């Protein structure tokens, strides 16, 4: 029987970024998990209600892997 699920398709620029999503998802408690389907190398299907949370998580992650390149004084 065909199944239809509403959500958001996330297209990742590369496979590594998808692994990051899987990793984020893995660490979360069951009620917070956002990944509905792991589609292929660069695509995942996620629940729309968690999108904002995910975006802020990724921003945080990006902030944590960047370091100030220039000294201010």
């Amino acid at each position: 029987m065909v199944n239809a699920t509403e959500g958001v398709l996330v297209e990742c620029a590369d496979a590594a970024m998808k692994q990051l999503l899987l990793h984020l998802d893995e660490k979360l408690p069951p009620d917070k998990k956002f990944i509905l389907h792991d589609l292929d190398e660069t695509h995942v299907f996620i629940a729309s209600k968690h999108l904002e949370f995910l975006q802020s998580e990724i921003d945080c992650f990006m902030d944590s892997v960047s370091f100030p390149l220039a000294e201010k004084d």
Partner: protein
Amino acid sequence: MSVQQRTLDCKDLHSYLKTLPAAVLDRLYNHPATCLAVFRELPELSRIYIMRILFVDQAVPKAIMGSWVSPNSARELEDIVKLLTELRVWQEVEMQGGLKGWLLNPTFRRNLKGALLGGGNEWSMKPNTDADPKARGIAVLDEYAMGRWECVLHFMVGSHQHEAISSDALQILQHAGLMKKEPGDNQLSITKDGFQFLLMDTSAQVWYFLLQYLDTANSRNLDLIDCLGFLFQLSFSTLGQDYSTDSMNDGLQKFLQHLREFGLVYQRKRKDGRFYPTRLALDIAAGPKKSMLNSLNASSQATGYIVVETNYRVYAYTDSSLQVALIALFCELIYRFPNLVVGIITRESVREALKRGITADQIVSFLRQHAHSECYKEPPVLPSTIADQIKLWAIERDRFLYKDGVLYNQFDSQADFEILRNYAQERGLLVWHTLNGRKMVVTKEGHDEVRKFWKRHSRNGSM
């Protein structure tokens, strides 16, 4: 949900003309200056074609024209045929014996001949015969033009140290979507497009602004054709020469006053009876590609004022609050001196700019364009680490692309999957699909349609 990066669409002369209705184009070609302006902007091959058939007063068969290029340039020929047809420079006609041929637009032919050979009515503007007792030199005109233009830009960045601009200019800024009124707020504020506009080079800005102005020409009772014709005339005038306003009708006089406000022409007094075109006006027909202004910028030290070091520091030798405001769009300012501002490019400051809709390329080209003359002595003008890093910061923001949709999976058979996938694909509703595991995503809007189709299909199948 998907985030589309939109850049400001700045049309060149031809793409603008193509948007005009055919009747307007035909009337436009009544003016030799327009024909010459259109002609000189054409690609080389089309210029050759036009020159070859300019004096042939009848249609020329396609087969003959086709033989003028070697077979491996056939693509190029196709392109110019399309361009010339769209510009209504020539039309396809049926010749005797059913041959297809090309015929130059008779108005265009007559006026281009007139422009190239002379004869007919005088089409260029007449220089004043009596010398202006208070003649203005080129340097004064340049200064005036840039001053007026910067006044508009100043207004956009909201530095209120300069005089206010007219309601006409305000209207154009709003019409162009460069500034908008926030609901419940009386002040105009700058939009995403406005930020991009600020970082364009001056000739592109003027051109974009004028296009928007011409868009609204009819609503201010100006004749679009007169205005365009006049602009093209202006672009063939001589810098530093004064021209008479005697032969201009009321509409054009009004237009001239607007051009004066934006610094495209200089007039000492409104009732002076003479005006000087400035470099801004001479540039118009050239469109954003090539311009005299850029050569002006390159030669004068005053406009190149930015030094960027590999440690992300930006030194701007300027006392203009406009230039400081522009740098502050993507820099964090740390020191400010009377003639020097020091800033630093950080990930945060660049991200802030990106969020406002400015692209990495615009930042980089802005820094290159306004680089201090000292920077040119040792290329690269902008350290490549800086240019690369700004682009990397931009790419970092779109590592993920989000699209709303509905996922269909758990199909019973490959045939079912393919039927539904093809159905969605034909209607442009399919976002993504994979054969492996039989999964597909359709758009949210298309979900209802696809579901109905599936219900119909499965009912028929079970019968």
